[in-house]
């Protein structure tokens, strides 16, 4: 190996400034998708567990479709095909948010469903004889317990989601992978720049994993 590394290329404003803009997109899209994905996932889980049967089947189709097809294909399909099918035009950022939210929502739906189901009938019966309504039982009894159980799995989805925002570079969303790819094209320094990109992903992802671990410890029940 007589490749001459030139790390200076990473530490120039020509790399830094686009990277900062990219970070805004990466983090912004992640947060929006996380919120939307959770709402969707929770609604889907409840739909499958408690709603009218046909609605449950619809949810089932959605969840399984998005879990068994690649996120990249979903993204491209939503970006190129959906506008034609629906006649609604949306930009790459919107398409990205829709695709990643739907994708995360599908995984979260299964996680929430498993979590909700893992709280057994005994807890519901105890709630029932204490006069709690179904909603009160969900809110005070089932949910807090289910959330503790699914927290590690939700963390994994969140981390995947953050990393999957890199897919948006293929539809020219200006997130960090797109920015770095552009820089590579301009400088022919892929080794340094992609290494730096990997480090950036690590730096934004790792605290999530640490934070989730801390939250898990905080929520851990004494004696359990």
């Amino acid at each position, binding site marked *: 190996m007589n490749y001459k590394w030139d790390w200076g290329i990473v530490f120039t404003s020509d790399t830094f400034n686009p990277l900062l803009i990219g970070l805004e997109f990466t983090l912004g899209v992640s947060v929006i998708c996380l919120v939307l994905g959770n709402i969707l996932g929770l609604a889907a889980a409840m739909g499958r567990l408690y709603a009218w049967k046909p609605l449950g089947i619809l949810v089932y189709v959605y969840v399984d479709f998005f879990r068994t097809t690649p996120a990249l294909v979903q993204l491209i399909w939503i970006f190129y095909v959906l506008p034609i099918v629906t006649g609604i035009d949306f930009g790459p950022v919107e398409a990205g948010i829709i695709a990643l939210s739907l994708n995360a929502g599908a995984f979260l739906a299964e996680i929430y469903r498993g979590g909700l189901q893992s709280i057994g009938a005994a807890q519901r*019966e105890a709630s029932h004889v*204490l*006069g*709690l309504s179904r909603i009160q039982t969900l809110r005070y*009894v089932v949910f807090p317990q289910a959330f503790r159980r699914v927290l590690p799995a939700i963390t994994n989805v969140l981390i995947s989601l953050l990393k999957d925002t890199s897919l948006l570079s293929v539809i020219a969303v200006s997130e960090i992978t797109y920015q770095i790819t552009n820089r590579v094209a301009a400088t022919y320094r892929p080794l340094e720049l992609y290494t730096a990109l990997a480090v950036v992903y690590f730096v934004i992802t790792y605290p999530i994993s640490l934070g989730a671990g801390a939250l898990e410890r905080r929520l851990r029940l004494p*004696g359990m």
Partner: protein
Amino acid sequence: MTAVSETGVLAVQATQVCKSYRRGVPVLTDVSLDVAPDQVLVLIGASGSGKSTMLRCIAGLETIDSGRISVLGQVVQDVGASGHTSRSSGGFRKGYREVGMVFQQFNLFPHMTALENITLSPRVTRAIPTLDARKSAIELLASVGLAGHETKYPGELSGGQQQRVAIARALALKPKVMLFDEVTSALDPELVGEVLIVMRRLAEGGMTMIVVTHEMAFAREVADRVVYMDAGRIVEDGTPEELFTRPTHQRTQAFLRRIESR
């Protein structure tokens, strides 16, 4: 043994209750049971005879196929022969408020402290201010011998302590009728006594109780009345004295022999 109180209202009145889980397999067949206020009734019977199911129907955890159940004169379930539930009575479901139930496996909420377990329902279903709910919960915990355990989670308590929290939790709603389904069966033998003491005190305090148990000493000493169930029917019904010393049915005799020899 169907003594009626001065007001003439029975604590629990079950009339010809029939129940099956799967079609064709009857679990309760024409069970009629009148429980007077203040009465302590011990329900015994072999495994699968329908004791839990009977309690669960009274508590509203199961719907009955036919018959009628009232609590303190309020109809909670009334299913005619056609299988339709009559909801015309204003008392429908309201009577359930008067019923507390304690389970074999405690069923405490593991993510809440002893105090939170007890205050949850008073706060959210009766709109009792948190401070008041806490105050009565602390008193209730003391009354079941658990003063100082307020902030412990169920996982930090022994089985006997958990079951006493569960009793306190049910009592927090000031029920008129308490149902106990084998509440000492999941406990280590040395912890059974502390729960029975609480139940005995409750009985002495005038609580109407229906108790499913295999603790025959408790039945003998505390019960006003013992009912023996077999295959979904009430076979024998009398004072502890009558039932334990001169059971009239062969099945009852055989059951008691089996229990005593354990």
